[in-house]
């Protein structure tokens, strides 16, 4: 049993490294050039709906638990359970809701490219289009 867990752990971590690190991206039409960790956290945790330049911010994300867990652990230190408790508090008081989930990478890229107000996160080595601009890299 222990061996199975070790093999699974190695597979999962290898998969993460194989995809590269996570970066936060916007359309190249966006006026945003860079963000810091806190600004990214504020947008994705529904603490603000505006970019530092005053533009409307619409966070979107891929419907993939692996990248979500890594991303939110990175920006807030919250585990998936803690994150769900956080969202539940906001949702059932009407004070915020999680980013819109997009079913696949292609749709996510299209939304990010077409709407300069949207902001998302992807693995760095999955950027194949110069129409996306990296505004934050995890250290």
């Amino acid at each position, binding site marked *: 049993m222990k061996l199975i867990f070790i093999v699974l752990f190695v597979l999962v971590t290898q998969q993460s490294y194989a995809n590269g690190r996570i970066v936060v991206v916007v359309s190249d039409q966006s006026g945003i050039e860079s963000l810091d960790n*806190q600004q990214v956290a*504020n947008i994705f945790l529904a*603490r*603000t*709906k*505006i970019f530092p330049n005053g533009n*409307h911010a*619409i966070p979107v994300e891929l419907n993939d638990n692996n990248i979500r867990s890594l991303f939110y652990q990175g920006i807030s*230190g919250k*585990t*998936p*359970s803690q*994150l*769900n*408790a956080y*969202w*539940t*508090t906001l*949702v*059932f*008081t*009407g*004070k915020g*809701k*999680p980013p*819109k*989930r*997009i*079913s696949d990478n292609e*749709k996510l890229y299209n939304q990010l490219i077409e709407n300069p107000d949207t902001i998302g996160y992807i693995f760095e080595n999955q950027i194949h289009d110069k129409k996306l601009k990296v505004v934050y890299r995890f250290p």
Partner: protein
Amino acid sequence: MQKNKITIFIYLLGFFILSNARIGVSHADENSKWNFNGYYTVDLTYADDDLVLVSNSKEQRSYKDGELSLINSIFGGQLEYSFNDKISAFVQGSLYADRNESIKFNLDWAYLSYDLGHDLNMRAGRFQIPFLSGTELRRVGFTRLWARPLIPGNGASGNEYHNGIEFVKHYNKGVNNWEFQLALGQAKHELEDVGNKGIQLFSTKYQRENFWIRSALMYSEFSLTSPLGVRLTDSGHAFLGSLESEWQFDKFQLNLGYSDTQTVYVPEDKMLYASLAYHINDKVTPYLVGVRRNQHFELFPNSGTSPPANGDGTPRPIPPQGDKDGYILGIGTRIELSPKTTLKFQLENIRDKDTTRVQNGIMRSDGNAFSIMLEGIF
């Protein structure tokens, strides 16, 4: 007994249907204007004495000595419709058993929300009272560490909800986050004899990394009628203040809360809670919790001591006068079964001392309750 079995069956059926539904907090269809979120609590509690426990709903939960009951279970859901990026409509209700173990539906929230920009939101409709997190999120057990709400159902001076408008403003500067909330409206009180003429509430929440603190000030004006039907006052006032905080350091989590309410009729109503939890890992969190509430009731002049019978012939209660003190000391554990499902165990000792019923002398109760709860969101 038959009714109880039906209630249990409906709860279990609802749970199995809803827990398998691909809807909710994390399953919004990317193109749909409709969004549904739900929550549930299946609460199995055993009491070793006649006890009144804090309820997940607005119903009072009385347990008899040796009783094992699911009556404090609750299901709820929120339906949202987005007209566009700025305007949305929300309806939120809950389903639970009333005192007669019949299933009852309650409309908890119903409002229109408008994004004014600059992180300012205006909304109009029906809202739970945002006095304490326990008064606003009483029904959604998944949001709290403990098995049941720490705040009694009448924790906001007996006001259940309000119809009116609210403004919610967020402000961020670096790692510092503020949330300001202004609520204006007319509240619905749990007692028929209290007619609310208006509430004003302002709350501030400050959050920074693993720390938050929230304060609220509330003022309400009400009319009061005695059980004899005599109008005692047309301009009663209630002043309420609260302070709540959570601090996570290393693997520890400390929660503190305090509220103070003053009215002519109840010049003292203080509530204090404290909890210390230890996150052993991501999944298991044992905790200790203590709650104290002290109330002092004054008898209104001319309120009468021998009220007439109700319509069904039962005598109406004599207005209380004196002190009512309650203490809860609990130990429990929250276990994350999955990111959306949690299991909780809680053992609590509940002590009450009531001197308000002068005809009965001092009434005391001292008993224990053990609860196993399955809670989640979908």
